[in-house]
Every structure is written in C-alpha cells, then in structure tokens.
C-alpha cells in the first residue's frame, strides 16, 4: 500500500512569492496534519484537517493556510514567503481526528532566497 505522498519534494522560491504544497494521505485515512521542521529542530504543528474541516491550528501567521479535499488529499499554501519559511514541510495522515499514530510523508523541502 502506498504511504503518505507529498509533492513537490524540493522547491526554491524567492521572498514575497507564494507556494502550494500537496499531500495524499494513506488510503482510508481521513485526517491530515501539516508540520514545519526547521533544520536541526523538531516538527512544529501547523494545521490538522479532518473530514474537510479544520480541527486544529498551530501558532503560525495567517500567511499559512490549508484545505482538505473530498478525497482527503490536502494542500498547504504559504503567501508572501519570508526567508524564515525555509524548512521541511511534513504532511502526516491518521485514521481519525484523535488517533494517536501519525504516518508521515518524506516532506517537501522549501528554500526561500
């Protein structure tokens, strides 16, 4: 069975631009969460979506937004990119909204110049 898939794997943007990252969860999983992992640090929670509804939001500015589609895939959008947005963006899926185990993808590496 396919795991969590993310695209693109790597991308380079300049300050002020916009980026869209995509995630397909494991088949049957209805919850998708997004995390930001800066080099050398632990992942930080950005959003959780369950059944197309936002269930949780971390301490990130409004430049960050996300949505979940009827097939449970998800997009993370970041507007007005800053140098500090350079990070690995991880998507994780889980069976339900409150299930303990997260299954992570390999991430999208964003570099902002």
């Amino acid at each position, binding site marked *: 069975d396919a795991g*969590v898939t993310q695209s693109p794997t790597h991308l380079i943007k300049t300050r002020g631009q916009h980026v869209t990252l995509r995630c397909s969860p494991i088949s049957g999983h209805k919850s998708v*969460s997004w*995390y930001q992992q800066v080099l*050398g*640090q*632990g*992942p*930080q*929670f950005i959003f*959780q979506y369950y059944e197309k509804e936002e*269930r*949780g939001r*971390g*301490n990130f500015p409004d430049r960050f937004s996300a949505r979940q589609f009827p097939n449970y895939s998800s997009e993370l959008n970041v507007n007005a990119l800053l140098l500090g947005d350079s990070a690995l963006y*991880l998507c*994780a899926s889980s069976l339900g*909204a*409150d299930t*303990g*185990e*997260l*299954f*992570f*993808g*390999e*991430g999208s590496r964003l570099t902002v110049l």
Partner: protein
Amino acid sequence: QQQVKQSPQSLIVQKGGISIINCAYENTAFDYFPWYQQFPGKGPALLIAIRPDVSEKKEGRFTISFNKSAKQFSLHIMDSQPGDSATYFCAPYYNYGQNFVFGPGTRLSVLP
C-alpha cells in the same frame, strides 16, 4: 507555551550498548506519549508509545518508562545497533488542540 525538553541533545553509543533518551514535559493534560524515529531525508516514524495508565512498555529492544509525577518519560534502546543511528523525538499528545508537541530531538550515533 507548551514546553517539551529532551536530553541529551546528542548521544554516541557503542554497538551492543544501551541508549537512553529522556523527555520532560510541562502540560499535565498530555495523555499519549510516543517516540518517533527520523532518518535523514525521511519523515518521522512512530517507534513506540505509551498511555499514562502504565509505567513501562517494551517492544523488542525498545522500552518506554513513564513517570507521571515527575512529568518525564524515557526511551531505552537495548543492544543498540548501527542501524538505530537516527534522530529521536518525543512527541506528547493531548486531545484538546489535536496536535503532537515534538521535542527538539536527540541525535543518536551507534558506532560499529
């Protein structure tokens, strides 16, 4: 702000030795205590987890010890192998807010 601390920051162990990583948290609402393992270029993967109603859980070479009163839990890796070389994150979770709070990570190197 929720605080999750890990120690040590990095750890070097000889093959066959015991690796011990500690995690301390502040929020008493946490009710699920996992450890995630991350290899370079990969996303984190669940290694082992414990609920607060037990003090210890063992799965193969990996053991979690949980001390509720001290608000700490630890990961013990017995007979450490070079393939265990990775970064380990504790990530306590609580239902309200539906998110995991990851620690800063511990980089483990197991020498052959």
